[in-house]
């Protein structure tokens, strides 16, 4: 169905100022059913299985059930994402389980400084040099 919402876990993001999955879905698929106060995927055949909703859900209420037209039932891939790493649980159809952890970011969220310590270089608006060049290139700019 691609992404689906577990009724028991979804609270409609009642404590948040917006529904997290609805905010993040790049294809605008997640919607809040205001009567039931539960989110749902309104067009499962337009879902890219990008996991953005799964990763952002504050109550871990969203999972992915692989596309039924080519995936056998039983496989589950579920992430647990923190600010600097992501932990993946992969459960096979035959019940085998693998776990992987990868770093995702080396700086604290919200800490980015655009110039990142590089010199801003040229003032020439019409020239080819970009912001922070040539410092961020580490060498001089190629030209003919």
């Amino acid at each position, binding site marked *: 169905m691609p992404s689906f919402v577990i009724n028991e876990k979804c609270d409609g993001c009642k404590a948040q100022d917006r529904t997290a999955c609805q905010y993040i879905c*790049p*294809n605008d698929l997640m919607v809040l059913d205001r009567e039931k106060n539960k989110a749902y995927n309104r067009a499962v055949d337009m879902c890219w299985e*990008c996991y953005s909703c799964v990763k952002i859900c504050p109550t871990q209420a969203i999972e992915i059930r692989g596309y039924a037209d080519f995936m056998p039932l039983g496989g589950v891939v579920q992430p647990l994402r923190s600010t600097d790493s992501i932990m*993946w649980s992969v459960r096979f159809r035959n019940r085998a389980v693998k776990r992987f952890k990868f770093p995702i970011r080396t700086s604290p969220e919200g800490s980015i400084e655009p110039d990142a310590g590089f010199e801003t270089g040229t003032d020439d608006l019409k020239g080819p040099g970009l912001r922070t060049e040539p410092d961020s290139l580490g060498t001089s700019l190629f030209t003919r």
Partner: protein
Amino acid sequence: MNADSFETVVVETDLLILGGGMAACGAAYEASHWAKKHNQRVTLVDKAAMERSGAVAMGLSAINLYLGLKDGRNSVDDYVQYVKNDLMGIARDDLVANIARHVDSSVHLFEKWGLPIWKDEDGRYVNEGRWQIMIHGEAYKNIVSEAAKMALKELGEHGSYYERIFITEPVMVDDRCVGAVGFSVRENKFYLFKAKAVLDTMGGAVHIFRPRSVGEGLGRSWYPPFNSGASAYFTLKAGAEMTCQEVRFVPVRFKDSYGPVGAWFLLFKSKATNAKGEDYMETRAAELENWAPYGTARPTPANLRNYLMLKEIEEGNGPIYMRTDEAIREMVAQIPDEKEARRKMKELESEAWEDFLDMTVSQALNWASHNIMPEETPSEISACEPYFISSHSGASGAWISGPEDLAPDAHFWGYGNMTTVKGLFAAGDASGASSHKFSSGSFTEGRIAAKAAVAFCVDHPDPVHVSGEQVAALKEQVLKPLRIFDAHKDYSNDQEVNPHYIKPKMFMFRLQKIMDEYAGGASVGFRTSGALLEKGLEYLQYMKEDAEKLAAGDLNELMRCWENTHRLWQAESHIRTIRFREETRWPGYYFRTDHPAMKAEWEAFANCRWDPASGEWKMIKREIL
């Protein structure tokens, strides 16, 4: 939903950036710096939320364009040569070189901003292939969009971004682009953005051809389904000349979930074989001579690798397998120490899974569902359906000015990355003939284009005026699908089946069927001919008429209506350009059965332009300089 209830919101700015993906973030980053120095305003408009929008929304496991200029690993000219050969001679040297000379700077910024890049014992980036470096890229887009937002913030009230606004049309005054219109997908608001310069970075196009999976798997396109042709539509409607609209991209990926193959081929040195275990790149090597000089150069162009694989399938030698088991076995066998070999095995396993988990989670799910352990079982690969994307091994997009210091005279007209329409710039998948930009190059091209666009704003300080009548007409046009639905919805007992209108989803399926069957889609082995194209074009004309009867019951459907109108224009320019180029040059992307070989006379760009004044299409052949 009542179209009369829509408020009109007018936003005035200097540089308007359309899109929120890698190119748009690069543009916002660079523009902010120059706009601050020259007192200009910058506004970015994204159809989604920037932290997860565009093709990098899910993340990436590699950055495919990094030259390593500072360490002398490669030269700019090496890269130009590589790109040009991959595209069978069809590329703009000036544009490719321009991206290549700046791209390392962007990658160095990404690292400082917090993107984890793999390093070897000496602290150097780990290369996947000659141009590719490995990353832990799950949060790639979060990081890059944060930098773009921080840069806009430096402009104070002169920097802003709008999310969940869907852009539909360019705003033209005489022959100049002075803005864009669209609507909010969250509330009843019509938006008019007025600007001195407009930068189109709205991505490539997916779902123009019928996908191989048509149930739930419809959405599992290789490139994202939300990249729906807005870039090409925007520049076409503005009257800009387009290039390489015939150069679609057909990637070969792990079958069905379309997981990446780059790490397997390049990092793990895996082979792809037919069912008998034969490596078709070896057994069919002689075929490459028919496509010389490109076919005989190394590396073999992507479309020719596809072509050899398609020939295997045609002859009944499938399934085609990525021999992941053999590749891992060979890598481990090189380590004599048993303990060390076990450690290496563990490391390779983790790397193999991360490759999918970082950028195509669905492929990991596919392996789990099929009980596939890559070290034990080979996996099927297959050619996907065609996509329009100039940031990879396709080339479609607007024909833009090159940089003053690199471009031949005929390729420079005042401002780098400006289309042939005054004030309208393009970058990323929106600009053509500069393939292989990938994520880092798209970000970089956004930077290049934004700087030039700020210069345009500074040179054209007069305020932009758009008449009230023009705005009213545009608003009526954008909201028309709501009115059509409202007027007719009660006629039939099923809102989906009504003779007075067509809903966007069926409209999309109709387009996909035409493109697949007449323009060389996956189901016909990517083969087409002049006669088939002629017929396909005839059917597209009916679609153009029926596009006026697209109907939307809500804001989401209104967006789908416009996405599919955008797709239709991308489709028409594609058919017209394949028909114009009477040869076969990229046989693994499409094959003209009536012109089955490459011709010297077509060592040229095939361009096209839709004339807004007459509504006529003009085909243009341009020399490769």
